[in-house]
């Protein structure tokens, strides 16, 4: 994370607990979607990893759902405030027809809900799903728009200025869920 002395980092999910949580998420999805046509769509970057891991767990149980990917950069509501940021775009890839399908969106953390708002707009430009649901590994609260997840791995109480960081070995050099806070100590 960071070696800065004014930032405290606390592990809230170990790699083993992440594994368990994902397995529970997979179980819940499978039991609620039985017999339906289902597709997963992960939001870049770690939502994609989460969707793939849940799909892999289900694969072992003989349930196979396709996994698509979505980059929401072009749908954000803060393009202007980005100022000098120059985002590198990822290729969204939804290689299946979503019309009439029950689509489950995946993101690693839900916070204000604005990312999901953008993802819903992006997803619906691919077609008209029968239903869209949302699965997250961590819900840290502080919604700014009325969007709620349908599948939640872990709910954490946080202060607005704290951060929940999910790290996956596929995307990062370590694995774990961390609570990160500026302690306001010496700078």
């Amino acid at each position, binding site marked *: 994370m960071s070696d800065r002395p004014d930032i405290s980092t606390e592990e809230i999910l170990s790699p083993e607990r992440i594994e368990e949580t994902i397995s529970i998420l997979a179980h819940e999805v499978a039991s609620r979607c039985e017999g339906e046509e289902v597709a997963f769509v992960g939001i870049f970057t770690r939502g994609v990893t989460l969707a793939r891991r849940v799909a892999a767990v289900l694969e072992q149980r003989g349930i196979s759902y396709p996994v698509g990917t979505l980059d929401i950069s072009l*749908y954000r509501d803060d393009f202007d405030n980005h*100022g000098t940021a*120059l985002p*590198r*775009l990822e*290729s969204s890839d939804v290689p299946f027809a979503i019309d009439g399908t029950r689509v489950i969106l995946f993101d690693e953390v839900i916070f204000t809900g604005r990312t999901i708002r953008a993802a819903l*707009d*992006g997803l619906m*430009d691919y077609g008209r799903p029968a239903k869209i649901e949302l699965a997250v590994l961590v819900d840290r609260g502080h919604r700014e728009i009325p969007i709620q997840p349908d599948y939640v791995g872990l709910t954490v109480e946080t202060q607005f200025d704290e951060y929940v960081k999910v790290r996956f070995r596929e995307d990062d050099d370590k694995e774990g869920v961390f609570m990160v806070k500026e302690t306001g100590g010496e700078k």
Partner: protein
Amino acid sequence: MNGLKPRKDLLDIESLSLDEIEYVLENAVPFKQLFQRSVKKVPTLRGKTVLNLFYEPSTRTSSSFEVAANRMSADVTNFTISSSSVVKGESLLDTIETLQAMRSDYIVIRHQAAGVPGIVAKHTRASVLNAGDGYHAHPTQALLDAMTFREVYPDFRGRKVVIVGDLLHSRVARSTSTLFNKLGIEVGVLGPGSLVPEGRHDFMQRFGSWDEVFDWKPDAVYLLRVQMERQEGQFFPSIAEYHKMYGMHSERVQRMRELDCYLMHPGPVNRGVEITDEAMGYEKSLISTQVENGIAVRMAVLHWLKPETQLD
């Protein structure tokens, strides 16, 4: 983040760093993928305005910019010379002042005089996109050419392209050859001696005939348009003569086929001059891919440039 500084305008290829070139070309790929969806539009530039300012006739480039802006949900206003007050004698700086008052976020400009987009860029807060100025530059054409070449040759470094035609009057040749050279693609040139300037492009290998070109084994042949409207003087004896010496026809297409060589052209094509009808049907022609990639690259450029109005 990725070490790139924001840029307000795109005026030429020379001033671009390799990082910037990679950034635009890589971002153009996801934009192109949007064209496969049922809704080809994204809301990124909603509420922004793009002014298409064309002092020279153009159908392809101006409509390509218009489609690109539309697909990003920007509002587009087209300003063309015949309908604007330029014909009434308004000076360039007066026009700029008017444009400034319109508070456009992006100005796409084509002008017959080199350097005009640069002057406009200095005097306006909008991002300026050069859509071709005199014999100087046509940077988005070069970027779409590079995107097209890299799609067919992911291992593009060290590959060879020969540009054929009127290099003297061609801003396309200038921008595209400069960009290809920056990317490590070898560039050769074939054309009438009177239309291939000495010294301007020292990195390019010069050929005297198609035989020499084919012996060099190019990976792509890039035909330039013979610019009838720019032939104030006589640079070659006749169209028939040009076609015989430098044009693309069935026999030369066969040589390209044997070399597995692609064909590129910036459009619009003068059939019967630089290329015959039959040669237009060559299976390894990338001409319509260039058109499609032009939209994707222009979307990536609009997404990249930051008008001053946005940095407040």
